[in-house]
């Protein structure tokens, strides 16, 4: 393994090298911005939140006394009178994954100090997120219209509605928070706050393009969680 230098610190190879690097003074993760480390640890904690939700869902679905609704029927859309299972969800997933791509490009252009490009790509990500939330609203209202409620539904076990609205709602809440921040950062990038070292409204701290990467971490996480929700609710 070749030796690597990060900000003047020589990383040493091998397990012993790793132990002495992580145990060294000042920082454990060499060259990692404070905010980035914070986001990673927050996401670890958030992973536990979603894991608890999904494990509860598995347990709840496994122990109901009434049969679980047939999800390929409940979630299908009618196109010209023909039910197409997973149609809406496929589009939603596609939009969200695409927005992850634009986010990653925004991070790249941010670090290249390409302010305009970075701004447009964050805006595109925000619009993608907003579209996702919009489609989720459509899906919710369709299900509510068909009589699905958190406390019961005409298709089977009442826990179906409970878990569906709670978990997709909690995920949708994460997406919405992300969209709000994406719009805020679109403004900050276009207004050139990182170039002028303008201090934040609340925190009174100077920003940097690393904030775009931190926001990106959150956004990719929200997408990843969606993949699990997608698998557990729509494919199971």
């Amino acid at each position, binding site marked *: 393994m070749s030796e690597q230098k990060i900000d003047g610190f020589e990383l040493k190879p091998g397990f012993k090298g790793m132990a002495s690097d992580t145990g060294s003074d000042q920082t454990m993760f060499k060259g990692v911005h404070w905010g980035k480390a914070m986001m990673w640890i927050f996401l670890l*904690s958030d992973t536990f939140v979603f894991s608890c939700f999904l494990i509860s869902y598995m347990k709840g679905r496994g122990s109901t006394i009434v049969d679980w609704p047939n999800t390929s029927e409940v979630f299908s859309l009618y196109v010209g009178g023909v039910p197409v299972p997973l149609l809406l969800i496929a589009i939603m997933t596609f939009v969200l994954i695409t927005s992850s791509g634009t986010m990653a490009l925004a991070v790249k252009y941010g670090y290249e100090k390409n302010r305009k490009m970075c701004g447009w790509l964050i805006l595109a990500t925000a619009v993608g997120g907003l579209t996702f939330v919009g489609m989720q609203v459509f899906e919710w209202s369709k299900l509510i219209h068909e009589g699905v409620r958190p406390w019961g539904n005409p298709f089977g*076990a009442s826990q179906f509605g409970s878990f569906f609205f709670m978990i997709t709602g909690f995920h949708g809440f994460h997406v919405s928070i992300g969209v709000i921040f994406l719009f805020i950062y679109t403004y900050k990038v276009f207004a050139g706050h990182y170039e002028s070292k303008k201090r934040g409204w609340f925190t009174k701290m100077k920003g940097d393009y690393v904030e775009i990467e931190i926001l990106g971490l959150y956004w990719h996480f929200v997408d990843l969680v969606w993949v699990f929700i997608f698998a557990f609710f729509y494919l199971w």
Partner: protein
Amino acid sequence: MSDEYDNNKSYKAQSSEVMDGSTGSINPDIDYVRPAEVGEQDLYHGHSFIEKWVFCQDAKVIGVQYFLTAVFTGIVGLILSWLMRLQLGFPELAGFMTAEHYYQFVTMHGMIMVVYFLTALFLGGFGNYLIPLMVGARDMVFPYVNMLSFWMFFVAVAVLMASFFVPGGPTGAGWTLYPPQTILEGTPGSGMGILLMLISLSLFVIGFTMGGLNYMITILQARTRGMTLMRMPLTVWGIFTATVLAMLAFPALLVSAIMMTLDKVLQTSFFMPTILKAGEVLEYGGGSPILFQHLFWFFGHPEVYIVALPAFGIVSDLISVHARKNIFGYRMMVWAIVGIGGLSFFVWAHHMYVSGMNPWFGFFFATTTLIIAVPTAMKVYNWILTLWRGNIRINTVMLWCLGFIVTFVNGGITGIFLGNVSVDVPLSDTYFVIAHFHMVMGIAPLMVIMGAVYHWFPLVAGKMLHEGLGKWHFWITFLGAYSIYFPMHYLGFIGVPRRYFEMYDSPYMTSAVGMNEFISIAAFIVGAAQFILVFNIIKTLKTGKKAEQNPWKANSLEWYTSTVPPEHGNFGERLPVVHRWPYDFSVPGAKDDFIPQTTAPSEVIHTEVEKT
């Protein structure tokens, strides 16, 4: 780390970088510390009264805010315990109290003491105050988020207290909040009370997450030059590991609180099975009450260590300083803390032996539970070996530490009883359990808190607390606490159940009545004795003698700030540079019996100090 030193030697050629000015070194090679990786922290200094004392971003002020708020809730919890003891010891004097009141007091006492008092005090209070000072940082890494963390906690406490004043009063379901009874009519506070409790817990978790991120990143990424992981005071290790536990355990509490709120508000059936009430089937059905127990205890057991680990860390530092001896087996202590933290995620179902589960499941959890005794016992031996042949100063701080060790061993041994399924089943839900967990996670951490208050008060306020009053406070509390909880073991063995409002004419009442009266009187006295500390603090702030800098002759960085009490930014112009661990006490050949962490190796080259 010894490896560090080897690394450092390879830097000999660059010794011109050594001139950091803080050491005035004679022999630059051995004093070399790597240059700073991260630039100076951008600090925002408050300008107005509001910015300096209310919505303050200084971790030290936030720490004191956390401390005072937690102590306020703790006093509420104390008063609730008095009311409970009044009912149990002297029911004829407690005519104003109904069974519903009693259950509400039990519930609120438990929840307040565990979550809003001990957790907030250790992590929010001591964590905020000590972490930046001990690792040599100017402040927490995200001061604004840190400020929000406290105010979120404050709102959580306000919501919790509000539940005393809503129709139906606070919830009376027991602090474990087991469904289905928690949200069903007939349980006190099953309306607004439980709702406010769940909202308050959710707010607490959100607020804590903000603080926890700060504690973790400050410790991991914002240490000063020379402060390696294995040179951190054990206090920091304890608080760090507890924070990791909290970040991973609180999600389960948050999720169970959200699900129960929906069960309550939207009539979902996450935790609610089919229920017959007065011949009628309720609208609930198909949910799993056991699921809640798993979620709750997945939070609940690590929570015990969230309270205990900071106490372990702090008491190690206090013992070392006041016995003038290095901590015995520092690395073992660190790994024991980390090991206990890791194991604590695999023992939760030992709280559920009587809930009904597969015997193999119980066998697994009994095994993991007993394994935790190994690192814990290592810690106790190391504390004793630290005292062994030390230059022990029997002052108030040391008394609290000794009290802690004895109490903790006592509570730990009853824990081994309860960890075994076959012993736990008959003892479950008796006073034996009450005695066990009050000893091990109530009184023992509280003793550390008291010791820590006497130890760090000179730093926070710049004045020395009165020793005589402190000793009275200790002895009354120590002897009183044993008078309360020792007899409870016996009550448990004769089968007195916990959470019962009164015993009526049960056969064991003849021997339990006198004992209950004795326990109650002791509880009143111990509770009142805590106000000696309040009096001591007020008196000291008014007329106490001024503390010199570093009155205990300790080594760790918090005593080497530019001013006492430290100002915002902590260390003045230059951050300290660390050359050693904080436990170099009574080193043969050294001028004093302590060598501060900032002392360069070349200054103590003639002593027998070891490389750390």
